[in-house]
């Protein structure tokens, strides 16, 4: 039932039906925001990413272009390209703990900081991957997409997605787990 609904939304979007466009924003906007936020770690940048993604979608419609189907994959691809461009434009952002650490009743401030550092490390490691590898890893293991859906987003066959995933994970494993292994070896000695 998913596909026809998406088709209906797309059909409405092509005629600039505001209800359809609003529904598209409501359906995919939050997910794209989360995706951007996870990779960028900055809410302002994530908002910019969402705004630009939907603006580009409108522009494509005005040229009678845009997707025939797989709208979600299309929007995520735009967002991913935006994020990749952003990576190229500017270095990783520095921590601003006072803004990021929100008062929590469940966790201690030091636990919060530790979590933030871990997230930052993962983001830095993801930046070292190629654009395609990064997209595959994030969509598969953070967003929880299936290979087929990831393939649609990247416009690649499943075999290629698996290869990208393998190489991406291998790089991440080296970057993120190597230190832990070394430190555990040292503690054993």
């Amino acid at each position, binding site marked *: 039932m998913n596909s026809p609904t998406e088709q209906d939304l797309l059909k409405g979007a092509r005629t600039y039906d505001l209800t359809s466009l609003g529904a598209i924003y409501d359906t995919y906007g939050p997910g794209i925001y989360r995706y951007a936020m996870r990779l960028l770690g900055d809410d302002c940048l994530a908002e910019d990413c969402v705004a630009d993604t939907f603006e580009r979608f409108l522009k494509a419609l005005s040229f009678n*272009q845009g997707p025939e189907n797989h709208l979600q994959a299309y929007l995520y691809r735009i967002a991913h390209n935006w994020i990749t461009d952003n990576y190229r434009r500017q270095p990783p952002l520095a921590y601003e703990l006072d803004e990021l650490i929100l008062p929590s009743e469940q966790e201690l401030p030091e636990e919060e900081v530790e979590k933030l550092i871990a*997230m930052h490390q993962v983001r830095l490691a993801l930046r070292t991957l190629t654009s395609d590898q990064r997209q595959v890893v994030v969509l598969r*293991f*953070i967003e*929880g997409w299936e290979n087929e859906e990831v393939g649609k987003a990247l416009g690649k066959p499943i075999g290629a997605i698996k290869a990208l995933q393998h190489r991406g994970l291998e790089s991440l494993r080296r970057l993120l*787990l190597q230190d832990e292994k070394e430190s555990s070896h040292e503690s054993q000695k």
Partner: protein
Amino acid sequence: MRKRVHMNPKNEIDPSLHKKLKSLQTIPTRAPSKAVEGRALFLKQAEETARGVTGTSKRRHIGWMQSIQSKLLFRRKEHSPMFSTFGTIMLIVALVFGGSGVTVAAAQNSMPDQLLYNLKLLSESTLLNLTSSPESQFNLALGFETRRADEILTIFGSGGVLSAEVVTRFQNQIDQAIRLALNLSDDQVPQAFEQLQTRLQTQQQSFIQVQANGSSTAEAAMIQTREMIQERLQILETGKNNYLQLRDQLQQQDQLNNRNQQNLSTPAGQGSQNAPGRGAGNPWTSGTPTPGSSYGPGSGTGDCVTCTPSGIGQGGNPYTTGTPTPGSGYGPGDQITPMPGGQGGRK
């Protein structure tokens, strides 16, 4: 909205790594006000876009492109990025060719000893090759001849020494102008000769007035240049009344040159049978020819290669009164008895 079949990704990833990646799943919630603002902005943009490109005007603007695309081209997913690439390519092309244009323009004022001079000659040659009408070609050649003369005057005027190369280039330019004048229609040739003659006379006067830097090399170069111009003036004077003969001579010379080139490319042992004294005669020079240099007495068939031709061979040079040298074809003509080898002699 989207039907998602969750497969356990843990089977494909190291659990420790998966745990680290999962840390990114926890993110601060999006501020609801920003979400509402974003949505409103998006819908406003959509409204503006819809107003700017109505269905009718959209079809009017891009309908023809789509119809062509649907028939001939593949469908592009994105439009703007392609335009961006195309724009970049066009910009590069414009800069490259624009830059070349500026360089060529700058080269037009260069002198023979300067770096851009060869570019100047190349641009002249290209311009001449691109011109198809004989009148335009002649006018261009006339202009280029004047340029060469001005260059020589500038060199003389600045106290420089004229190299043989510069003189030869000037000479070739005059010869080219004469040849192109002969390509004109019969009624235009005398007029063109007159034009070139007037120009050469003016240049000759300028060369006489200008003072060389006093060195013997400079003096020799100046004398050589004046003599060369004088020869051309004589050719033009005679050619005005008898340009058909001059045209024939040039054609014969061209044929002979072509034949010589072919012979040069003949394998060893099958060398040229042409001996000195068989040439069509070079109408451009009064200098001493070297054997085999096509300065022969015209189309004579005699085998005597050492005897002095005295018959008025067809290919003989009618433009000089100087003493002929063996095989030069510069005989004074009008001999009653043709000598061996002078097939063209009057009977």
